[in-house]
C-alpha cells in the first residue's frame, strides 16, 4: 500500500512538473512568440517607450534565456524568492512563491491563500449536498422504476441539467434574499470566525451548484443501480433470504456507487477554480472569480498561480480517488 501510494505520488509530481512547463510556456513564452514583450503585461494601459520596455524587461529578467526564467519561476515556487514589487521595495516571498501581482499590489500566494478557503467552502459544501441528494433520488428512482416518483425525478433532473447557473442563481437570490428576505446578508465570513454567517453566505451557491450536479448524479445512480440490481449476485443475496433493504444497501448500492466515487473525486477537483459563474452571481471571491478578474486585467502572475493551484488540486483529487478505489474494490491491487 505504501509503495503504491509512493508511486502514485511520484507520478503526480511528474505531472505537476510537466504542467508547470506547459503553463510557463503558454503565459511567458507565448506572448514573445507573437512578438509582444511580456513587459507589456506588467505596465499600465499606456504603453511605455521602447527603451522603457527594455528597462522593464531587464529589471524583471525577461531578457534572460527562457530556461533561466523558468528555473527562476519554479525556484520561487519551490524555495521562495525575493521580489521586486515594482515600487523599488524588495519583498521576501517565501515558498510557495507564485510571484507578485502589480495590478493588486499583493503577492499572488497571499491572494490565493485568501481565496482558497472560499473556494473550498463552495466546492465541498456543494459536493456533500449533491452527493446526498443525487444518490438518494437516483436510488429511489431506480427502486421504484416506472413509478410516478421515477418519472418525476427524470423530468426534474432533465430540467435541472438544462437550467444554466446564471438563471438559477439570480432566481434564488431574488426569492430568498430579496422577496422572502430570509438571507438579507450574504457576505462571506470565514467558517472559523462566524459559522452561521459562513453558512448563510454559502447556502445559495451550494444549492445552485448542487442542483446541477445532483441531477447528473441522480441519473448516474439510477442507471448504475438498475444495472446492478439485475446482476447474479443480487439474486444470490435474495436467495439467502436477506431483507430487501439489506439487498439494496449492502449488495446493490455497494456496487452501484463504486464508479460514482471516481467521477465524484474528479468533479470536485475540477470544480475548484472553475465555479466562476456561481462566484460571480453570489459575489464570492473564490479562485474562479479571481482568475477571471486576472484574465480581464491581464494579470499574468495571478493567472499562472491559479493555473498551478488548480493543477495541484486535480492531481491530488486523482490520487485520492485511486487510493479510495483500493479500499472500495478489492479486485484493484496495490501494485
Amino acid at each position, binding site marked *: 500500500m505504501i509503495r503504491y501510494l509512493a508511486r502514485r505520488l511520484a507520478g503526480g509530481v511528474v505531472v505537476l512538473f510537466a504542467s508547470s512547463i506547459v503553463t510557463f510556456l503558454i503565459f511567458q513564452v507565448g506572448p514573445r512568440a507573437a512578438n509582444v514583450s511580456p513587459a507589456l503585461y506588467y505596465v499600465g494601459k499606456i504603453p511605455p517607450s521602447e527603451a522603457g520596455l527594455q528597462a522593464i524587461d531587464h529589471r524583471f529578467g525577461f531578457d534572460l534565456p527562457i530556461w533561466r526564467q523558468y528555473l527562476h519561476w519554479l525556484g520561487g515556487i519551490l524555495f521562495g524568492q525575493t521580489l521586486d514589487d515594482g515600487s523599488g521595495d524588495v519583498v521576501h516571498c517565501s515558498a510557495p512563491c507564485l510571484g507578485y501581482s502589480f495590478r493588486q499590489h499583493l503577492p499572488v500566494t497571499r491572494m490565493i491563500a485568501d481565496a482558497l478557503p472560499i473556494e473550498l467552502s463552495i466546492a465541498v459544501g456543494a459536493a456533500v449536498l449533491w452527493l446526498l441528494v443525487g444518490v438518494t433520488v437516483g436510488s429511489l428512482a431506480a427502486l421504484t422504476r416506472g413509478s410516478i416518483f421515477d418519472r418525476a425525478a427524470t423530468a426534474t433532473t432533465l430540467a435541472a441539467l438544462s437550467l444554466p447557473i446564471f438563471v438559477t442563481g439570480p432566481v434564488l437570490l431574488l426569492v430568498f434574499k430579496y422577496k422572502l428576505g430570509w438571507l438579507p446578508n450574504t457576505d462571506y465570513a470565514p467558517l472559523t470566525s462566524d459559522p452561521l454567517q459562513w453558512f448563510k453566505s454559502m447556502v445559495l451557491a451550494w444549492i445552485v451548484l448542487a442542483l446541477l450536479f445532483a441531477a447528473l448524479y441522480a441519473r448516474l445512480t439510477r442507471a448504475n443501480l438498475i444495472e446492478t440490481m439485475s446482476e447474479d*449476485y443480487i439474486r444470490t443475496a435474495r436467495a*439467502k433470504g*436477506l431483507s430487501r433493504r439489506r439487498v439494496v444497501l449492502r449488495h446493490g448500492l455497494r*456496487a452501484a456507487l463504486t464508479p460514482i466515487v471516481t467521477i465524484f473525486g474528479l468533479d470536485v477537483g475540477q470544480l475548484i477554480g472553475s465555479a466562476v459563474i456561481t462566484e460571480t452571481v453570489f459575489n464570492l471571491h473564490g479562485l474562479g472569480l479571481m482568475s477571471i478578474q486576472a484574465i480581464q486585467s491581464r494579470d499574468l502572475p495571478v493567472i499562472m498561480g491559479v493555473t498551478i493551484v488548480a493543477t495541484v488540486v486535480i492531481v491530488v483529487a486523482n490520487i485520492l480517488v485511486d487510493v479510495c478505489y483500493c479500499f*472500495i474494490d478489492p479486485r484493484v491491487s496495490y501494485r
Partner: protein
Amino acid sequence: MTAQPDGDCRLSVRELRVHFPTADGVVKSVDGVSLDLRRGEIVGVVGESGSGKSVLAQSILGLHNGSRALLSGRIRLAGHELVGASERELAQLRGSAAAMIFQDSQSGLHPYHRIGDQVAEAYLAHHRVSRTAARRRAVEMLDRVGIPGPDKRYRDYPHQLSGGMRQRVMIAMALVCEPDVLIADEPTTALDVTVQAQILELIAGLRAEFGMAVLLITHDLGVVAQLCDRVIVMYAGQFVETATADELFYQPEMPYTWGLLNATPRPAGRPGADGPDGTRRLRPIEGQPPSLIRLPPGCAFEPRCGYRDLVAGQRCRTERPRLVPVVDDGSTGHEARCHIEPARRRRLWADTIQPAR
C-alpha cells in the same frame, strides 16, 4: 410423480404456471407442472436451453426475473403456500427452508465482499446470533464443503478463488442454515469436468449428511445418471416424461427423451456403433424448440417428432397428450406425455432405437 404428499414430502408443486406478458404475447415459460420432492432424494430436471427449467427452479422461491410475471398454481414448502406469498414471507423461507445455488459462481458471488462474510451473512439472516458466532459457523461450513484452510480463506474475495472453490462457497452459503430443500440450477455447467465430478460428489455427500431434498436442474444427462434418483424431462415449459433414473435410461418412453439420449456422448466401441473406427456419431434433435408464445396446439414436440405418423388421424397435431402413467396401475411412477401406444413405444425402443445407440 403426483403422488399424495406424505410426511416426507419437502416441496410440493401443483399445476405451476409462470407466464411473462411481453409486447409479442404471453411467454409461457412454465406451463402447468407438478412435482413432489421427498426427504433425501435428488430429482433431476433435464431439458434444452429455453425449456423453462431454470425459470421453474427460480420461481419456486420467487427469484425469477421480472415482477410482472404471472404465477399460478400452488407451491407448498415448510407449511407455507408460496404462490402469492409476500416478499417478506418468501425472504424468511429463502435460505432457511429452501436454498438455491446457481450456475455461475463468478457472477453469483458479490465481488466486493469477503467470501466468509457472504456465508456468515446468510446465517445471520435467519439466526439471532453474534457476528462472532456467525463467523465461526461460516468457517465451519467452508471447512465442510472442502475449502482448505477455511479460517484463512474466510478473508478472501471471490476473484482470488478458482471456479470450483467459488462453487463450494456458493454451496456453503446455501447450506449454512441447513435447509430441507436445495435447488441447484446447473451447479456444474460452468466448471471443467474433474471439478464438476467433485462438486457433484459434494452435493451427494451433503444430501446424505443433511437429509435434504435436492432439485437439480441440468442439461447434462451424465450428471443425471451420476446423481439423481428421479428424473423429469422438460420440454417447452411442460414435463414430458418423469421416471426413476434407471427407467429413464433403460426404458424411456417419449420420443423427445430418445432424442436427448441419442444426443448424449457415450463411450466408443459399443456394438451398433456407426463410425468406421467404432465411434458413434451424436445425433442432434432436428429443428428448434417451439416458441413459448405460440405453442403448437397438439403435442409441443410434434413438429420435431420423427414418429408422429405412427398415430392415426394427425392426433399429435390437434390434441395435446396428457402426462399419464406408462403402466396402467401407475405403480412405477413412470409417466410420459405421448399419443403413441405404450406397447408400440416400448417395441420401438427395444427394436430400433436402443440397438442403434
